[in-house]
């Protein structure tokens, strides 16, 4: 029994760890109510996918895929393709994170919240509208005042 578990863990245990990480991130994405936290969970998911691909590159007794002039056989080096693919994926994940942050920032300005409950119940939108109305009123008052003062100052030189 223990023998079987040992061989399974040695041969395929890392896949199970990667899957656990992946589903942990999925759980976070489903249950977290905050979009910022959802985005962080998405990043964890990306890491899990990257690790999953890198598992395929392993070879027993292989060295990193840089020719050292001694080893000739292809079986002596790790598989370079997953490394090359994941290298770009890591950098692109940074780009997607940046876009997500920008969208979240716009969302905060627009609705005043990134909490899913507030957004779905319309509470955030309402708040925003109220404050916008207030701001509009304040602006209208200001403009009216300005016009009045402008009228006064405009008339004064004519009279004198």
């Amino acid at each position, binding site marked *: 029994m223990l023998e079987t578990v040992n061989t399974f863990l040695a041969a395929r245990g890392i*896949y199970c760890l990667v899957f656990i990480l992946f589903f942990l991130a999925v759980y976070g994405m*489903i249950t977290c109510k905050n979009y910022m936290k959802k985005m962080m969970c998405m990043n964890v998911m990306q890491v899990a996918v990257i690790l999953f691909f890198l598992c395929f590159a392993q*070879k027993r007794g292989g060295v990193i895929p840089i020719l050292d002039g001694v080893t000739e056989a292809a079986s002596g080096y790790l598989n370079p*393709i997953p490394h090359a693919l994941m290298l770009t994926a890591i*950098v692109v994940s940074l780009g997607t994170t940046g876009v997500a942050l920008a969208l979240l920032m716009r969302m905060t300005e627009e609705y005043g919240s990134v909490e899913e409950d507030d957004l779905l119940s319309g509470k955030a939108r309402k708040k925003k509208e109220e404050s916008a109305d207030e701001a509009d009123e304040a602006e209208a008052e200001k403009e009216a005042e300005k016009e009045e003062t402008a009228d006064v100052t405009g008339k004064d030189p004519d009279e004198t």
Partner: protein
Amino acid sequence: MKYKILTLVVLIILCGAFCAGTAYLPEIGDPQSVPNNHISDYYIEHSEEDTASPNIVSGTLADYRGYDTMYETSVMFVSGLVVTLLLAVNQKKDQQKKRKYDVTEKVMGAELLRPVETSKLKGIMNHPFGGIIIDVSARLIVPFSMMYAMYVLAAGEASPGGGFQAGAVLALGMVLGRLMKGEKASFKIPGAVAVLLAGIGAFFYVFTGWLSLFNGGMFLEYGAMPFPISYHHLHEAGIFMIEAGVTLCVMMTIVGIMEALLKREDFEEKD
């Protein structure tokens, strides 16, 4: 609460199913597994003569799969552009007016509206943070990390390294300096210039591909570039050129994203 438990149960069942399914996946470290055969053996055995690059990952990335990397670089540039555009438009006008032009100054008799000093803005991230310890240690880290990045770029073709890593490490130095010193950072690049330079980096990649067209070769065929050097050196030069382009694009995209986020934050309500 109820749906959290339901989610947990469903996901545990799914995770168990996936783990049970690993029997179909190749064994870890098996040299005879499917992903480790076919094309990868060809790449390892022919990398030296085809791409003149001892680093097989660089050879694969920049030479065998040059198209792929070109579009990845474009994706990076586009993401930087999108972040800048998203955060540049539709800033709250009254706030912008108030913050930007609330200082009047008399210059040669004429009243000019001057922008506010940035130290008076209310953003949190724009203020330098940390005390003397962080300041001193960052001064030690930044120059060495930048020098290391240049080494990673230059040696990326023959040893571990490459354009993406060099760009990320270079940007790290700049981001660190910008966060430590705020607006007073002596080496900072405005967001618009950063996006422009990222575009130039992505263009440099494509331009390297075009060079071989002038000599009757195919796009990104480094061996046909119109320089009077040997085939071996042509490949080295081609890989170095596209990696320089990638480095510029990645570094400037990261700096551009950071600048856009920091700049937008100034106009947020903090009343």
